[in-house]
């Protein structure tokens, strides 16, 4: 029982994490293969999309040759894979720009939106989750439950549209599209982001709040909580000092999923608020058949997801002395 491992205390978690990183790379390669295969099934190609309605077959053929689309798909995939391995995702077929440049222009936007939404939603989700858990089964819990349910149950585009109509069009409080001025003041900055953050936040708060509630309730049923109560621990100290450290695992996991949704799944919000983020960039890449860009976006989303899950796992491991010490 009292087996203090003679090896370094970090060996356990490090091997665990190293294994996860290895699996993440396998997953990344699989994702690229899946995306490449599916994109091969898309009708039309970049040459046709660039030239549009009035193109002649000769023009298309010429452009196709120029873009290198006339070479075998497998060859293109392997070349792309080689490029990615050396850190170069290639050039966009459509924009005549390096994919890296296009993405680096959008990436900060997505990060800012996701970051702000996280800052806004996570504390509220915690508040709701904790409040709901400690009043389990009572009227406050029921009311919160109904509220989060309604928040989960409404389609995002409806929430967004209603919010715009109310806050932007009727009340003229907030802008209906998200345009951040150059060198904004804090007020301008927050005002610009208020609407998309609100709309994205609704879903995240509801989802995460419910997860937090469930995670806390699972802990509340454990004997050490009763023991803490019998020690005379106050409810606040019980939650923050005793329960939360043990509920960290499932909570960070839920947070990782929410964050990865914010990173790549904000397509509807990006569309409605005309916000140039990565999700609409990827949709753009699909519609223009810009394969290098599409691949890069998919890689980025996948890598982010895996990274977030990895971080969540690491946090869970570090929060759990048993796992931490191997």
């Amino acid at each position, binding site marked *: 029982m009292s087996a203090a491992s003679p090896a370094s205390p970090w060996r356990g978690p490090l091997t665990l994490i190293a294994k996860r990183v290895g699996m993440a790379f396998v*997953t990344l390669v699989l994702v690229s293969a899946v995306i490449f295969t599916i994109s091969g099934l898309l009708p039309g190609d970049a040459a046709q999309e660039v030239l549009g309605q009035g193109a002649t077959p000769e023009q298309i053929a010429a452009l196709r040759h120029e873009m290198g689309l006339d070479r075998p798909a497998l060859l293109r995939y392997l070349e792309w894979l080689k490029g990615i391995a050396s850190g170069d995702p290639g050039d966009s077929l459509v924009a005549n720009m390096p994919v890296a440049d296009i993405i680096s222009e959008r990436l900060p936007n997505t990060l800012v939106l996701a970051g702000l939404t996280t800052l806004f939603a996570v504390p509220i989700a915690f508040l709701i989750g904790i409040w709901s858990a400690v009043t389990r089964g009572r009227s406050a819990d029921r009311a919160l439950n109904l509220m989060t349910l*309604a928040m989960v149950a409404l389609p995002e*585009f409806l929430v967004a549209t209603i919010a715009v109509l109310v806050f932007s069009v009727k009340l003229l409080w907030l802008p209906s599209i998200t345009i951040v001025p150059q060198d904004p003041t804090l007020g301008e900055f927050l005002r610009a982001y208020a609407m998309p953050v609100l709309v994205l936040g609704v879903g995240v708060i509801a989802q995460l709040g419910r997860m937090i509630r469930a995670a806390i309730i699972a802990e509340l049923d454990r004997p050490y909580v009763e023991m803490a109560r019998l020690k005379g621990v106050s409810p606040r100290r019980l939650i923050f000092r005793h329960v939360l450290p043990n509920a960290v695992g499932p909570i960070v996991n839920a947070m990782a999923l929410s964050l990865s949704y914010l990173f790549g799944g904000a397509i509807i919000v990006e569309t409605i608020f005309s916000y140039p983020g990565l999700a609409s960039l990827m949709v753009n890449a699909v519609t223009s058949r810009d394969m290098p860009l599409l691949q890069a976006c998919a890689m980025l989303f996948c890598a982010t997801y895996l990274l977030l899950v990895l971080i969540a796992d690491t946090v869970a491991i570090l929060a759990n002395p048993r796992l931490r010490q191997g």
Partner: protein
Amino acid sequence: MNVTSILRAVRRLPISGKVGLVLVLFWIAIAAIGPFIAPYPPGSFANEEVFAGSSGQFWLGSDFLGRDVLSRLLSGARFTVGLSAVAVTIAVCIGTGFALMAAVGPRWVDELLSRAMDTLISIPSKIFALVLVAAFGSSLVLLTLIIAITYVPGNFRIARSLAVGLVRLDYVEVARARGEGRLHLALVEVLPNMIKPLFADIGLRFVFIVLLLSGLSFLGLGLQPPDADLGSLVRENTSGLAEGALAIIAPAVAIASLTVGVNLLIDAATQGKAR
């Protein structure tokens, strides 16, 4: 099992659960009989006026083309409920099937499936569905399959963790020691004990599918017109939102009541289990 035990279970539900049950039953009934009680064919241009308000002839007014909103709602509910139900069934069959394979099969099967599912889950679901619809088209069957595939990984994750937990239990060990095959272990010993927690997952996934479907409709990738699911009804009538047209409010309320209803029922049912 039998009628009385069902009735007893119903009586045990809290109020919210009963409300949920009523909503769910209502929408199932609408999905079943809706098209037969619709006053007009869903595609007919019955009203000269577009976005008309409620009237004796058109209970829920008319839509952006002057079609009867009630009739379209009744047929839309069938698509939403039906498609989501079929998609969730497919997703759960595949996801849970894979999960059972991973749980009772050799380790490499588990590794392989887990990697594959990680791959699918790491692509944002709406974009994944969008690519698939762009690649394969959006007929009713394809749309159902695409949505189902999109939700396989989520179900797999949950079902796998359930199944892996159950496989270690003594009663499965006993069956194994008896010499039972893997199929028996999976289907007879493990699966029946996953049903309750899976039911909760199925319900949530159903809601997500309804929402994904309406999201896809928003992005113009939904059902083929003149068919429309509830989400498409909201989407195609958005221009009436500012004037508060029933044509958009009615389907929006329909979606909300369906998803909230399902959630309430599940919540009540799973909480009952915990007690």
